């Protein structure tokens, strides 16, 4: 069936089902057919479409029969809170993966055990960010030898095992589109943390991650520790960050000696906003900007 055909049949069967004089059994058949066409117009297979249609028919038939019993129970007391016709109600509820859970399922599928340490949000789109990610991983591995790490971010990680001091699992969450990805990323990260419940969670703060990390909203007792590592943004990231966070942040990012003072204020503000953060690290670029030269110094900020 063509897309146009499915669109047309969906509209026709939905309209027919809405007609007031259609009997209950016929309405159920029409709604089931409409569901089949709805799946087909969304690009689903015929097998899936027919299965969905049978499910809708079964659900509505059961609901209609049971509703009659419920209405008898209520009418005995003179109440009328229940709907009159189950076939006029929307049917909801399918436990299927969506844009925020599909990436999590993919990540969990490849894991044998839950990691001890979960690092969320680092990027490697620039040499500076790559060096930062490698430095962060190195510090974490040094502090927690033998513990397993999982690093999750938006970007493709090309760090080698030698650079990370392997083995480290690096995964990418496919970007869906700029605004959608940012909104979905927060939920994806939240789902991941709840599914893995790591001993340590490190969230990398960069200008691009502001909005998504704010959205996670994980309560304190969900984690044993929550740490955040700050990497100063580039000029373009700073411009975007300032636009996004103009009302909340007053610090004027610089990359000279005054930058560290700004970053300290930023860290303090972060902890005030997120009282469940237990440790904050500042990341300061050291050396040049080429791949061979750049390094990042990670300094814990006392809280």
């Amino acid at each position: 069936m063509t897309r146009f055909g499915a669109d047309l049949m969906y509209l026709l069967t939905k309209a027919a089902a809405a007609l007031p004089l259609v009997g209950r059994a016929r309405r159920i058949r029409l709604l089931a057919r409409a569901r089949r066409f709805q799946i087909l117009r969304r690009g689903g297979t015929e097998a899936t479409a027919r299965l969905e249609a049978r499910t809708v028919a079964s659900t509505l038939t059961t609901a209609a029969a049971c509703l009659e019993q419920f209405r008898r129970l209520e009418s005995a007391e003179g109440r009328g809170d229940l709907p009159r016709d189950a076939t006029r109600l929307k049917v909801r509820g399918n436990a299927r993966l969506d844009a925020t859970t599909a990436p999590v399922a993919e990540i969990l599928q490849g894991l044998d055990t839950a990691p001890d340490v979960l690092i969320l949000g680092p990027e490697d789109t620039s040499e500076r960010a790559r060096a930062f990610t490698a430095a962060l991983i190195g510090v974490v591995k040094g502090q927690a030898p033998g513990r397993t790490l999982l690093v999750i971010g938006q970007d493709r990680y090309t760090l080698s095992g030698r650079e990370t001091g392997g083995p480290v699992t690096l995964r990418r969450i496919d970007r869906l589109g700029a605004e959608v990805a940012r909104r979905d990323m927060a939920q994806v990260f939240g789902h991941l943390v709840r599914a893995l419940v790591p001993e340590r969670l490190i969230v990398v703060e960069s200008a691009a991650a502001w909005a998504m990390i704010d959205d996670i909203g994980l309560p304190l007792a969900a984690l044993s520790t929550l740490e955040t590592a700050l990497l100063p943004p580039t000029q373009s990231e700073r411009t975007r960050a300032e636009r996004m966070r103009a009302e909340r942040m007053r610090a004027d990012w610089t990359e000279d000696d005054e930058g560290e003072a700004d970053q300290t204020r930023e860290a303090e503000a972060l902890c005030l906003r997120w009282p469940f953060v237990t440790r904050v690290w500042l990341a300061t670029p050291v050396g040049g900007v080429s791949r061979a030269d750049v390094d990042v110094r990670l300094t814990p900020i006392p809280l």
Partner: protein
Amino acid sequence: MSAPDITAIVNAHREGDLAEASLRSVGAARAIAEAAGARVEVIAVLDRADEATRALFAGWRAFALNVVEVDIGDPGLARNAGVTAARGDWVAFLDADDLWCETWLRDAARMAAMRGARTILHPECNIYFGDDPYIRRHPDMDEPDFDAVSLLARNPWTVLSFTARSTLIALPFGATRFAEGFGYEDWAWNLAAIRQGYRHKVVPGTAHAVRQRRRSQNAVAKASGVIPQPVRLI
């Protein structure tokens, strides 16, 4: 007197006369289950109930009702108190303003006998009534496209299940801890059960009617931005 096969636990708080239809739905389901050979006891757990609710349950004469009054203030822990008082091998929960279809206990008991104690049974669908009525179908974990990871984003099942009492003793409901950011004790329990290898299934041809209230526990949890207690899925 021989022990019952099924314990129906009705959880009440301040439903008042709304509970009368719920109790009559319990009575209808009990009668059909007993006609099929099952022995059913009914326990009502009144948690910080008001006078109207207390009076309704105290005056109930249609069938034997064991009323247990508690002062807990938590729906999950109140259910645990009901399980403690229960004697049946199987437990079925109902909130005192919701309704069971009349075949619920009979059909769930039949499926439970076939599937065993590692199964948690739900009706095929719920009819939500009140301000925004709709039907929610329940997924069965044996459906081909079911994925447990989707439960991180939404809870497809209510707590009004038919479950082995041994399961509820081994896996009691947790407390709601809004101040710490946790809620949805039913969602957390569903996830924890899956983590421990239990399977959620549906009983075809059955439905519950669930009353929506503005100040329901779920509505408060949603407004508070709480999450269910995290459960490691691997």
